[in-house]
């Protein structure tokens, strides 16, 4: 394998990056995190419907990737390997939550992965925190309220920074339709949250 070049990090395949990371090139791992952070979050949201849980699961997934790098073998696609880890973690969380709701909030002495719960009331927040949380929540809510066809392309463009060409290729939707959906998706997001945010835009 060629020597790792930090300047070319964006051009490496996922599998190359993983191999470089196995050879202790930490920037290769950072690039994998950059590539998959949002995609994993979106993937996990379908299972959890909770952004905080998604955030925790994404962190845990990358942590496991980091700790288990030696166990990755190049015969498997990196994304498949990582999504499998993420899905298993999501399933464990789901089971854990089911147990919590049904049995107890106390530590289960028979389960080494269980732990004592510290319950905080998320509704009690200082004003600034509350405002930021509201803005973020409203933005996410507005995005999630978009029709699926619009949300998909808007997320790919505005959150994952894909080009219009890449979106058209990835989704199989003609470029003109991609643009038209993005225009309407963005416009709807603005209308849904205009009562929460003072934009102050100049044209």
């Amino acid at each position, binding site marked *: 394998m060629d020597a790792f070049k930090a300047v070319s990090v964006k051009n490496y395949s996922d599998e190359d990056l993983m191999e470089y990371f196995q050879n202790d090139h930490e920037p290769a791992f950072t690039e994998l995190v950059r590539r998959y952070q949002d995609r994993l979050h979106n993937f996990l949201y379908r299972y959890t419907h909770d952004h905080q849980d998604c955030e925790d699961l994404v962190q845990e997934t990358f942590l496991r990737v980091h*700790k288990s790098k030696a166990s990755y073998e190049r015969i498997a696609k990196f994304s498949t390997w990582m999504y499998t880890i993420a899905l298993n973690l999501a399933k464990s969380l789901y089971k854990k939550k089911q147990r919590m709701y049904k049995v107890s909030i106390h530590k289960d002495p028979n389960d080494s992965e269980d732990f004592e719960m510290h319950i905080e009331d998320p509704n009690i927040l200082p004003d600034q925190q509350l405002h930021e949380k509201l803005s*973020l929540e409203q933005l996410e809510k507005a995005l999630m309220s978009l029709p699926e066809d619009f949300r998909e392309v808007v997320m790919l463009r*505005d959150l994952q920074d894909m080009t*219009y060409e890449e979106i058209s290729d990835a989704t199989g939707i003609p470029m003109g339709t991609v643009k038209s959906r993005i*225009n*309407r998706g963005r*416009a709807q*997001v603005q209308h849904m949250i205009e009562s929460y945010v003072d934009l102050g*835009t100049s044209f």
Partner: protein
Amino acid sequence: MKFLDKEYHPVIENYIVDYSDDNLELVERDAFEEVLVHDDDLRELAFSAKEGKKLLGMLREIKAKEGFLDRLNSKISGSSN
């Protein structure tokens, strides 16, 4: 929001996208804004799309500011100690 239901020629949709992404040359932008003056629905769509794009940019920034990578790195160092 009847402006969302209107269909425009792909060239116009292209202009709206470029307008929202700030990809128009000055002359093109002026010409497009001149068109917007005469079409209420198109103006509403273009302005809203531009604002929506900004808001989604905010969302991306907020998510980035949450310091995902920093927290991940700190967990990684914590787990290896």
